[in-house]
């Protein structure tokens, strides 16, 4: 069984391994430089107590590599497309399910070992990539004081869960559709949909966000460094959203102020406040754990579905 899996998938494994190696070399080289820059800059500005602009100044020339690292968020999807989707679908396209499912191994154990190996490989790759990226982004994330944002999707434990989920989704789609290309298309659509829904809609609600309101002043963020700011609005004294487009929403005394730069102080004088809704940086690991659990549970359900199909449905 093991040898069959290795022999049939070794090209994919070698290809993925090579890609990971290239990424590793690239990140190790640039990451070492970045860490060096960061520490020497910290030493300099620390001595003169002028670190305020450091995030803006450092790493400005690294745009390409930063984009590349950000792009690692699509890697889990690639596992789903090229490892997950063909796993069962390719057998059907070649007709080899008739060969392999009539050997002395039950379909259940064939499926179990195949799925186990592919999922383990995906998890290992996702983990290795995440470790690299986490290390590489270390200086930058330290500067920002938090890892919500792009870092949430490409560092920590979430890349592992995404990779496992993408592969499970690919396997399920391939098992159901029995054709590689439709299975890949379904995997792509499903992955984007679920990741989008969780990331944009569910994630801000994992834990009730902190709502902080304060006197309206320009240019003050109101949230601690590294926090994930979900919304930032102006509210009137009754707590309703400030609506400058309706005359009733703006106190008469401030109408004139809207057309010069004193609007903020005028509104502040009339009891308008700034409301910031955010998740503090300290909740990073809680959020990672919740996101991880969601995707692993989804993956488990998809795998169970695929296994049931393989065992029960006519070949």
């Amino acid at each position, binding site marked *: 069984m093991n040898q069959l899996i290795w*022999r049939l998938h070794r090209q994919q494994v070698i290809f993925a391994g090579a890609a990971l190696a290239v990424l590793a070399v690239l990140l190790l080289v640039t990451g070492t430089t970045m860490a060096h820059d960061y520490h020497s800059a910290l030493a300099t500005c620390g001595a003169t107590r002028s670190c305020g602009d450091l995030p803006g100044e450092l790493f400005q020339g690294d745009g390409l590599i930063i984009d590349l690292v950000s792009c690692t968020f699509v890697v889990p999807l690639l596992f789903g497309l090229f490892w997950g989707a063909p796993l069962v679908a390719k057998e059907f396209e070649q*007709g*080899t399910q*008739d*060969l392999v*499912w009539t050997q*002395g*191994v039950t379909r259940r154990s064939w499926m179990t070992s195949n799925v186990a190996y592919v999922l383990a490989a995906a998890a290992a790759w996702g983990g290795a990539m995440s470790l690299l990226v986490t290390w590489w982004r270390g200086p930058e994330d330290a500067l920002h004081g938090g890892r919500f944002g792009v870092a949430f999707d490409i560092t920590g434990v979430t890349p592992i869960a995404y990779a496992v989920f993408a592969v499970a989704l690919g396997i399920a789609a391939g098992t159901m559709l029995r054709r590689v290309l439709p299975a890949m298309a379904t995997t792509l659509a499903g992955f984007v949909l679920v990741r989008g829904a969780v990331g944009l809609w569910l994630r801000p609600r994992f834990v009730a966000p902190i709502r902080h309101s304060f006197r309206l002043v320009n240019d003050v963020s109101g949230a601690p460094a590294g926090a994930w700011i979900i919304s930032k609005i102006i509210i009137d004294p009754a707590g309703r959203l400030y609506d400058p487009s309706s005359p009733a929403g703006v106190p008469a005394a401030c109408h004139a102020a809207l057309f010069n730069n004193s609007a903020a102080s005028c509104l502040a004088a009339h009891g308008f406040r700034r409301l910031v809704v955010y998740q503090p940086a300290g909740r990073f690991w809680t959020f990672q754990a919740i996101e991880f659990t969601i995707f692993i549970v989804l993956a488990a359900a998809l795998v169970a579905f695929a296994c049931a199909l393989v065992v029960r449905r*006519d070949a």
Partner: protein
Amino acid sequence: MRTTESEMAVRTIGLGKRFGPTWALEDCSIDVPQGRVSALVGPNGAGKTTLLRLLVGLSSPSVGEAFVLDKPPRQSQDFLASVGYLAQQAPLYKQLTAAEHLRLGSHLNSRWDSDTAMNRLTARHIPLDRPVETLSGGQRSQVALGLALAKQPQVLLLDEPVAALDPLARREFLASLADAVADGDLTVVLSSHLLHDLERVCDHIILLAASRTQLCDDIDHILETHKVLVGPRRAAAEIEGRYRVVRAVHSERQSRLLVQLEAPLIDPTWELSDVGLEDVVLAYMGDDGSNTAGPLSLVGGPR
């Protein structure tokens, strides 16, 4: 040539398989005694592939029961080890070599005979070290047969193994098969829509037509019991009442009947003659192949 139930390698009772609204196989009841090499014949779409897939457990029946070696096809190592299957088009992993296929087989089966398979393929000059996609169709079929035999099954099911082969490759494939069944009590069921190919290696026949079993018997017994009767037309009705008339051709005064007789018919009215297997099969399939005969009818008499 009658055998008891426990000696049946393959038995089905009212087996049927429906895909959506259409029945691919209906009311199929067959018995294949152990050790037979059985030809599963019938026109395209008669349900041959469906039957074989039901027997090997790749699909499950809509109605009825199937037994292979007295066990219903199921997902257990025991069952899978006892049945060999060669699917239509002889599917193989294109990028793997014959030797790699044999190694895989040894990992996937507790009982596996690589050496014999290797020798058999070498004797037929099949390259073992080239990806199978570079082999000819005949060579691929030989590799697939080698895999099926290396499993050392008790029942071997082959689906249209020679359909895609040229006459030479066809002969070689059947020779390989004949070698393999020469010793031991392997039971083989091989399907084809061309009876001619199988006549040499088979001693039993299952005829499916119109999704039903028309015939399932030893070839010797079929030839013994099927006769052509030629006699006066006025006496035909009496024969049709007494025997199963497979086919009747009537001219103005004379009738020519293909009849299934369990006991010899002694009646000077009728002239009896032997009939070839192909004619019997064609008669059951309702097509005499020549299209030159007069009005034909396929008559199902009492059985």
